[in-house]
């Protein structure tokens, strides 16, 4: 930085202060009271995520799909360059979506717009924050740039969601500043089996910790945190609360209304649907049906109604997990 740059900076700062003072005075003249506004503090980040509960966030690749998702009652969309299934088929390096596409989607719908960045790619995250994305998914669907470290998410104003396969992984992500967790599942397979496995792992660990708390065995909570490399405070908080300390969605392989309802029964707060909708032949109906089944998962009649809105004949084909080679698994990226 040159000295003259600091002059420019100071001039801007000066202008900024004067414009703020003028605004304050004009509000005072109108009889208003001036109060501080604190933008994007953690409480409004967690609070924002809390509004997603009981809803469906849908993967989209363009504004037409985003419009379909909004009309179907999605609580948000996730903009990708390729749907997870296509990422799998295409191979190569998967990166964050085209910023122009994300901006177009942001201009065309009223619901929150999320986008994915690569694990550890702080700069992609900065770009997404800069253009005003509402939520960033630091996702294993894209090719990780840092196998050892995730982004330090406390440094951002925008909330983050991270994938997890079990409770320790979830708590580590929360410790790094994630405002929301989702199961990893096995993305782009149309097979919900892995999401079920991950959700049950999380629930069982929570039940164990809860048991320690109820029986007053804090030493066991301490031992759990040491064994699993998670901060003691977060393990203790989870044991007190009896659930994950942040909102927890299901993701990875959800393709039908019944899949969504199943994940809700297992304790998800809501669901992400990736390839399941726009890789099927009936995206409009399927999107609407999954929204209905997620909200009314505990009402069998309504889930039947939702399931009848879709046909298995036009569902996405799906991939048998046993045919995948270990190196093709996405869930093992970033631990």
């Amino acid at each position, binding site marked *: 930085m040159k000295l003259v740059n600091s002059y420019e900076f100071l001039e801007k700062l000066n202008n900024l202060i004067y414009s703020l003072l003028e605004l304050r005075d004009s509000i005072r003249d109108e009889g208003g009271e001036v109060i501080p*506004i*604190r933008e994007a503090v953690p409480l*409004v980040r967690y*609070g924002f995520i809390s*509004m*997603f509960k009981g809803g469906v966030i849908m993967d989209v690749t363009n504004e037409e799909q985003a419009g379909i998702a909004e009309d179907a009652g999605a609580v948000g969309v996730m903009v990708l360059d390729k749907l997870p299934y296509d990422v799998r088929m295409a191979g190569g390096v998967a990166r964050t979506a085209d910023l122009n596409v994300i901006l177009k989607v*942001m201009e065309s719908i009223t619901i929150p717009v999320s986008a994915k960045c690569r694990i550890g790619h702080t700069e992609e995250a900065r770009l997404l924050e800069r253009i*005003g994305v509402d939520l960033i998914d630091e996702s294993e669907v894209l090719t990780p740039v840092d196998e050892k470290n995730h982004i330090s998410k406390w440094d951002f104003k925008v909330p983050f969601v991270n994938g997890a396969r079990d409770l320790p992984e979830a708590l580590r992500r929360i410790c790094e500043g994630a405002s929301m967790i989702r199961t990893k599942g096995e993305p782009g397979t149309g097979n919900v089996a892995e999401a079920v496995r991950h959700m049950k792992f999380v629930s069982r660990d929570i039940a164990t910790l809860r048991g320690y708390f109820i029986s007053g065995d804090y030493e066991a909570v301490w031992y759990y945190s040491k064994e699993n490399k998670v901060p003691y405070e977060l393990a203790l908080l989870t044991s007190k609360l009896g659930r994950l300390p942040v909102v927890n969605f299901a993701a990875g392989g959800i393709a039908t209304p019944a899949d969504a309802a199943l994940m809700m029964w297992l304790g998800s707060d809501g669901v992400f649907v990736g390839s399941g909708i726009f890789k099927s032949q009936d995206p409009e109906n399927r999107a609407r049906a999954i929204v209905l089944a997620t909200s009314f998962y505990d*009402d069998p009649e309504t889930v039947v109604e939702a399931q009848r809105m879709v046909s298995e004949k036009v569902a996405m084909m799906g991939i048998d997990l046993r045919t995948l080679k270990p190196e093709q698994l996405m869930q093992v990226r970033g631990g």
Partner: protein
Amino acid sequence: MVRIGVLSLQGDFLEHIEILREMGVEPVVIKNVADLKGIDGLIIPGGESTTIGSLVMMRRLERPIKELADSGTPIMGVCAGAVLLAKKVIDRVVGETSQVRLGLMDMTVIRNAFGRQVNSFMTELEVEGVGRVRAAFIRAPAIVETWGSARMIAYVNHLRLGRFGAAALQDSILAISFHPEITSERKVYNFFLSMIKK
């Protein structure tokens, strides 16, 4: 015991249920028309107004909720709930929307009036009849106009954007654009409970 219904189709209904329980009020989960029977008040929580609206329509809850309002049962709409209560809804980016709404209050709201999520904020403000409260505005709507028997009871002064309506009251219907459940602001709930006719 007072029974307050919480519309639990989508959104942060859990937070409302937890705070009501803490205050010694019986929360009632409302998902179907039959659940509305015998409640003393109804809270429509925050969430996505388009999602809640389309589920309200799919479950045919629109008319029963209107009848509830006509019978004088107090209704509180928070954030997305306030959007659903408004007669006229405009989105800051997309413009006038045709989204499903209950249209029970004579007011115009602008959705996402303060910007996107990075512009969500905390502040303090004065609500008429309630007092000073901590307020979380999350992708919040702003109430820009009231007519008929509706009137503003709180304003927020935003340094960049100016002064907007933050709460409005019409007979026994209350619309709030911030989230009292996120800041555990019991004063707002006490005000709402006081609207129930003994």
